[in-house]
């Protein structure tokens, strides 16, 4: 996993980040803890997946747990 080591301000000044420069962990923060969760006649959703490999499970659980509880979005 590679991460941009440049300061965020510099990256941001270049405009929208190309997808390939987005760190996977930042992306998963959003893809696994954000986005609409739907149900009803689903074949599958990520919640159904029982993750086995430790590294991936740690990665996903660390993100997924943040989607619950006291850090729901709030209007500020």
């Amino acid at each position, binding site marked *: *996993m*590679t*991460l941009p080591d440049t*300061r*965020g*301000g510099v*990256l*941001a*000044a270049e405009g*929208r*980040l190309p*997808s*390939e420069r*987005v*760190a*996977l*962990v*930042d*992306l*998963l*923060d*959003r*893809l*696994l*803890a*954000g*986005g*609409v*969760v*739907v*149900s*009803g*006649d*689903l*074949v*599958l*959703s*990520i919640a*159904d*997946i*029982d*993750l*086995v*490999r430790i*590294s*991936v499970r*740690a*990665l*996903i659980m*660390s*993100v997924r*747990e*943040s*989607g619950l509880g006291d*850090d*729901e*979005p*709030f*209007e*500020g």
Partner: protein
Amino acid sequence: MTADTGVYLYAVAHDLGIREPEGLTGVDGRAVRVIPHADLVAYVSTVPLDRFGEEALRRSMEDLDWLDATARAHHHVVETVAEAAPVVPVRLVTVYGGEGPVKELLDRRHDDFVTVLARVTGRQEWGVKAYARAPASAGAPGRKAEEATVGPGTAYLRRRRSDLHEQEEERRRAAVGAERIHEVLAASAVASRLHRTQDPQLSGRTEWMVLNGAYLVDRDRAEAFRRVVDGLSEPGVEVQLTGPWTPYSFTVLDEADGERP
């Protein structure tokens, strides 16, 4: 649609008569298409259930390269369609049995989608992470002298207590600092959300992450927000900005919030 394929859902948007860009492909390299229904459109692609069924995914999800490729493909579709109009992204790996259930979803959650679309229109998400540098407590002067007077065992225990105390203090200070940063940023944003701080193993950094925030900001306030972020770095605290993102963090909409019977 056969029994061997599913419908992978990426995002929902208002039906503005805009159709998917030519040649846009999603997960597994499949072409993205739209399902228009009830003034909304769902962006989807057909996926083979031998790769996107429960059993296959159980195996695939153990593969970090697969997860990386799938997450990036999902993100690419969401970003591409978001260029044309506001969208509500759907959580990674949401697969339906066919187009019928997707249309039912657009009916059933119509008002929720419209509400969230209104919330994100004209706005972008920015990510702000703050890192505190680790306290330099090891190897402090005077330790050898202490060992000489009280013996190595007692000196070790004292040192251990002192280190733990210092670490606790450091954490407390960092938490206060993170809270202050979050408050400043939240005041410059329409909405804010805290993600769990990333483990150093995942962030690839040795510094300790004290803040992993997401901020929904009006498009025309983006420059001002960046300036606020730039002003937050200080000795011992590094602030990193990511984005702009499609507002993933502000489109959380659990089924429980809807009209569950």
